[in-house]
């Protein structure tokens, strides 16, 4: 097990100390590199935070289990990608070759924030019981397979878990009306 996979493992567990260390260790380097894109300091911090969030999210989804580069390199790749998205949204022209090698898997849900049902579901989810939140969170957010969730949460068989999951969805629908 190399250093990256230790960090990735701790990020998966939401380990606060690790998150803080990754955040602090890479911040200055990121700002130093990203200054050239003429974004304000606040914007840079904002992008940097979103990149950290994406890093943690992809760690939880198991997308970087086989990462061969360092966590820092991966984080910068994401940050670069996000700056590119941001500049594009603002209609600024940028030299493409700066970014052409960057490709990451991350869904930007910013448009969905105005979707009313999503808004209602966000509030409804907070009112769900803990077990339901766990099941849905593992399945939809961490993109775990039902078999994995069954083991993780100790269900005796998959059908029990399946009916639990559909009960939770029903509850969530009710809470989000």
């Amino acid at each position, binding site marked *: 097990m190399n*250093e990256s996979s230790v960090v990735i493992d701790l990020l998966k567990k939401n380990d606060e100390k690790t998150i803080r260390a990754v955040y602090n260790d890479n911040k200055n380097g990121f700002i130093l590199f990203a200054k050239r894109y003429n974004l304000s300091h606040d914007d840079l911090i904002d992008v940097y935070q979103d990149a950290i969030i994406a890093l943690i999210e992809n760690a939880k989804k198991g997308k970087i289990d086989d990462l061969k*580069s360092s966590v820092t390199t991966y984080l910068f*790749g994401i940050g670069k990608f996000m700056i590119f998205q941001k500049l594009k949204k603002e209609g600024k022209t940028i030299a493409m070759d*700066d970014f052409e090698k960057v490709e990451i898997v991350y869904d930007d849900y910013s448009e969905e924030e105005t979707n009313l049902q*999503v808004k209602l579901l966000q509030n409804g989810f907070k009112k769900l019981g803990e077990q339901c939140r766990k099941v849905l969170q593992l399945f939809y957010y961490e993109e775990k397979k039902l078999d994995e969730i069954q083991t993780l949460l100790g269900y005796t068989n998959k059908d029990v878990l399946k009916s639990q999951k559909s009960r939770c969805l029903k509850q969530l629908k009710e809470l989000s009306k």
Partner: protein
Amino acid sequence: MDKEQLVERYFENQLSEEEHKILQNYLDTDASFAEEFAFQKNVKQAIALNERAELKQKLQSFESSKSTKRWISKWSVAASIAVVLGIGYWFMSQSPDTNELYDQYYQSYPNVVAPTVRGENKTDLKSQAFYEYDSGNYQKAYELFSQLYAIDKDDYALFYSSLSLIELNKSQEAIALMDQFDLNKDNGFTPYFKWYKALSYLKVGEKEKATKLLQSLSENQNPQQEQAQKLLKELD
């Protein structure tokens, strides 16, 4: 495979291309199924947005706790400056040690060229060079970047091999290497070459050469302009 299973496999990222088509077909022909599917996709987004909002809050708290610390330390700095002033005014008239300024301003430059962002198993020379650089193995990184530079004469290879030398505390050699970069050329690397070259000059005590580079950096807009102006003032 029934509809429910298809949806399950969709969210598990397990659908084959063929199954994708079958799912799409159901979505096109069965309105209530399409509605249920859209609902679950919204659930996915809602949970993601909640998680992200929570994390964002945490990260923002890192920032605010830091600025309070900085605020406190500003006062302690002010206090100690007052003490220093009281003890010996003569010391202030001495020009600052260039080596000290180097330590104060030098910061490792990150790898921003070759992020292997998909966790792919890339073993080509370039990725390997950056891997060593990221891991702090600067000797190895220097060798690999030099090889790369010999092959395709790319600026990035020259830049990172110079930086590796700087990290190895070989400032004189780094300067010699950076001489190969034509500073009149104007690309993304130019200001950084100037900046790190200036710092290397400081490190070896060549204040005049450093000043000249810093002056050219401070004259027009570039990412290192502000830093250069600050450092120039301290050198004065």
